């Protein structure tokens, strides 16, 4: 009897937690896509809550301070970590992505203060929605500059 009482209580809590996790996952899950994957999805991706990542193309950054509207393009970067490693690390992959005109690109619009870390060859990770005009409207913009703590050989090397 006593065991049953505690057992029932525990089962109730367990069920509640499972429900919380399941429903919250369902409510806030976002598909994580690369630029290529987004292009592949095409019109079917319009309006869905998405997470998109790519390399910021520096030349395309435009900022209108009167409306706080930031626009830029991102170039496709592989989402597979092993592939990134095989190609020489994230910094190298971002560099290649930006300087390769054949890569697919997506235009991004974001309204808000211009983030300090926004620069060419930064990795942008955004949540938002794809508009019918093919522009990605970002609600949240996260930027990662490849970590300095990775094996970094000085640039002077190539000049010597």
């Amino acid at each position: 009897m006593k065991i049953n009482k505690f057992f029932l209580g525990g089962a109730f809590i367990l069920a509640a937690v499972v429900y919380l996790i399941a429903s919250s996952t369902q409510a806030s899950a976002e598909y994580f896509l690369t630029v290529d994957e987004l292009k592949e999805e095409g019109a079917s991706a319009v309006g869905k809550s998405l997470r998109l990542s790519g390399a910021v193309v520096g030349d395309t950054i435009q900022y209108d301070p009167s409306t706080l509207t930031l626009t830029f393009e991102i170039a496709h970067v592989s989402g597979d970590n092993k592939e990134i490693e095989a190609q020489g690390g994230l910094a190298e992959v971002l560099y290649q992505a930006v300087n390769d005109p054949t890569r697919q690109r997506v235009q991004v619009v974001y309204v808000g203060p211009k983030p300090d870390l926004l620069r060419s060859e930064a990795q942008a990770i955004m949540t938002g929605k794809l508009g019918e005009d093919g522009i990605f409207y970002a609600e949240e913009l996260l930027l990662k500059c490849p970590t300095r703590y990775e094996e970094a050989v000085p640039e002077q090397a190539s000049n010597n």
Partner: protein
Amino acid sequence: MFAEFGYGVLLVSLIVAIYSGISAVYGAKNKSAAMVESARRAMLLTFPLISIAAATLIYLLVNNHYEVAFVYEVTSRSMPTYLKVTAWWGGQAGSLVFWSWLLAVFTSAVTLRKWDRDIEFLPWVILVSAVTLTFFLGMSVFFENPFTRFWLVGGNVEPSMFAPANATVFTPQDGQGLNPLLRHPGMVIHPPMLYLGFVSYVIPYAFAMAALITGRTDDRWIRITRRWSLWAWLFLSFGLVLGGRWAYDVLGWGGYWGWDPVEIAAFMPWLTGTAFLHSVMIQEKRGLLKQWNMILVILTYALVIFGTFLTRSGVLSSVHAFANSPIGPFFMGFVSLTFITSIALVIWRWPQLQAETEMKSMLSREALFLLNNLLFMSILVVCFWGVIFPLISELFTGSKVTVGPPFYERATAPLFSSLLFLMAIAPLSAWGHSTLETLGKAIWKSAAAALVVTVVLYITYTQNIGALVGFFLVALVLFATLNEFWRGARARQKTQDENFFTSLTRLMGRNRRRYGGYIIHISMALMAIGILGIEIFQKETQGTLAAGEQLDISGYTIQYRELASWNDQGAGVNYTRAIVDVYENGVYLGQLNPRIDYYFDSQQNMTIPGQRSTLRDDLYILLVDWQPVSTIGATFKIYVNPLVNWLWIGSLLFLAGVIFAAWPDQDPAEESARRTVARDNRQTSAAD
């Protein structure tokens, strides 16, 4: 020369640590006190050794030895000396050495204690520490060597510890330097605080393993390590708060916590640590939950190692992968190995870890503590699920699906609310047995007062249901806990013939852990006020203003006056500072100076908000952009963050509470007398 020396000392430390572990086991197996003593001294020796290696590294950092790769990566000439010193933990290789050094400090401290009664624990405590230390030193020596230098070989620069054939040392002119975003006092002490917390948890874990191995599975290990786990918890909590404050000051979005995987990695050991802190009390008082406590301390240790790996290795910088660092597999291997071994030990000792009594009443203090543990574990599961969900979804559906902050907020909000509710009622319940009636009697006044507060808030402040529920719970915790202080002091005052404040201070001084805990509960309630405020009531606006133009938000008026921009060549920074006047309902409050600093060497902006902080709200102004020669002056983004100051006030009170609880008791005789009484109480199993 210095680099070789530092590396050599690290290598010797590694050998000494290995020796220490082996001789400890050998001594314990062969009942050789001399071997155990030798192991103990070897362990003590690791502290000066690693200190020397660390000092060498700091010497290299401070003196611009850019031929050393680590120095090149984390410092630059324009950095002030104190930042060069703290760059020690600014990168992965250095922070691993920092970890080892802290562990050597703590292990030395613990092996210097009086071991008379617990001498059988000693070799195993040394063994666990030595294994952990060996792992971290091994990582430094073989994979993340902070003393690696650059060599010029046939026109190419290669990093290597020792000179390749026909190579000369290559010394870059200047280092890369620390990211300006990290040059903030909060960020300078945030990692060491987290690490102090992480490393301190090795000690309770080591004693737990010693208890399992020796079979001395009573609560002795818990009593010895009680203060350790409190300090560990203090540092870990402080580290988390500093991280939040840094984000609030520096990241410029008016937030403090973003449910980033790295943040969660540091938060998870805090969750198990907090659960552990509560559940050990049940073991001490009632002899229950012994198996559970073991599992908790093992989990905490595993999460600490895991957290060290995630927070510093940068593996999560690419968002959805766990293995792009060479040391990743070793960390995962080490965590799995220690975890499996520890759990095997628990299973082996399972029968000896049976509860001494049975849990009877659903509303007894121990049952409510158990519920508290379940809630903390549930939050842990939510966090863990969120972090690994992208991996799972990719495995099963082929597409990566991630969950962001809304997931965590939604899933944890009811759990945190339940914890607040428990915080209010658990201290009022009795050990052994409580009924709805006794609990109701104890809580009804506080509940009524909290209800009055909620109604007042409904009329004057907000009609948001979530916020009102939150405020009700906060008020309930505050009233119920303050009432405990009041009740205790009054009761003592009646018998002791003292005035109220003497009674209160003496009462608290004699029951440090209990009242320290209550202070912590109050601080949690205050922090909850801040979190409710910023999460639910944050307001924002933005606009481009010409000189003299105004912007209104939540009763504040912001008037742009002027802007100046100048270079500081020495520091390598360009400052652009705006001056804005702030009025509230027409009354002039003062000036704020939001700023943008541009760092030449890293070509990066740093946005420094202008903040005006009161208990009611924070006005938080960001300078977004400016046009020096146009009539349109500057663009601002403005946040009003209601009540957020309570988050920081709560944090400070929290620190005070933990220090109060962990502070050594003045009179050891009194302490031991009290322990005897506690033990007698338990034997007669009387309700507290």
